[in-house]
């Protein structure tokens, strides 16, 4: 069993606590999570920080982890069908290009994410909306 340690920032709330994970690299599994000495948390964590990571192994308690791209091929209310990434990406690109061509860039809305995705993904999202789509219609859940 190859154990490694990874320090990261807690994904819950804006306190920015640091957590130290011990990971079994062979089994690709978290063995333990303990508070790390971060600037804001100083070696303490709340219940979400301590015990909020086991969703990663897809326990199927509440909802199912998404594993494959899916498209509703028969329109709204039709079932979702698993597709390849190539198909999903080109489908999205085609539909967005079509809508942009038909109704203009301001008919498309995009969101950032204040949650797990991180700053870089948010930067790319707004860059995509502004530079590629051509609209400032981008916002996120800060208001919510």
């Amino acid at each position: 069993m190859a154990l490694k340690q990874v320090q990261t920032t807690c994904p819950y709330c804006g306190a920015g606590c640091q957590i130290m994970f011990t990971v079994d690299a062979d089994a690709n599994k978290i063995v333990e999570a303990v508070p790390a000495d971060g600037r804001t948390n100083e070696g303490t964590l709340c219940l979400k920080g301590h015990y909020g990571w086991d969703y990663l192994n897809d326990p199927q308690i509440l909802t199912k982890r998404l594993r494959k791209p899916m498209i509703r091929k028969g329109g709204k209310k039709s079932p979702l069908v698993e597709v390849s990434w190539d198909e999903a990406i080109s489908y999205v690109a085609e539909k967005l290009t079509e809508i942009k061509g038909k109704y203009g860039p301001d008919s498309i809305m995009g969101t950032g994410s204040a949650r797990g995705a991180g700053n870089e993904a948010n930067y790319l999202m707004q860059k995509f909306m502004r530079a590629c789509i051509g609209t400032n219609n981008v916002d996120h859940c800060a208001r919510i």
Partner: protein
Amino acid sequence: MNYFVKGNPDLCIGCRTCMIGCVVVHEGKHIFEIDPDSYTFHPKLHMVKTARLSVPVQCKHCENPACMAACGVNAIYQEDHRVLIHTETCIGCKACMDACPFGAIDMVTVAGVRQKDGSEKKVANKCDLCQGVAGGPACVRVCPTQALTLVTEEELEDLAKRKRMESARSTFCEVYHCDEFSYGGRE
């Protein structure tokens, strides 16, 4: 003397990290991999919230335990500075629950075990000060505001001693109007 864990309502923020910490340590680490319904979720301490108070309450590990005296099947015993329940012996008669003045004992279902008629089996459940766990009580360790402390005999004695000292000093200095310097000088 028996040890015990004590909560401080001035520090507690009612977050219940202690309660999960308790279950995790008693169930073991595999708790994060198994079906959450395959084990029972029964913290051995209870978060009490009243209009002006939030604090966890748990067993005080009394020196003359009322629960132990009340138990009709000798399932409660003292060992290693603590009061423990032998859950295999316990028949869930609730006499201990009734006897405990702190409400520290509750009756909890035992996962995967049923009574003969198929109904749930329940036995007494209370703080065991994380017996056999390295680092001591989990609730104390995981509390983000350090609202819980393990009180040992030495500590309790020390505290009493310190209080007596303080009391003596303040009586001497304030009631008799002597300052600390003259106290040293008179020796």
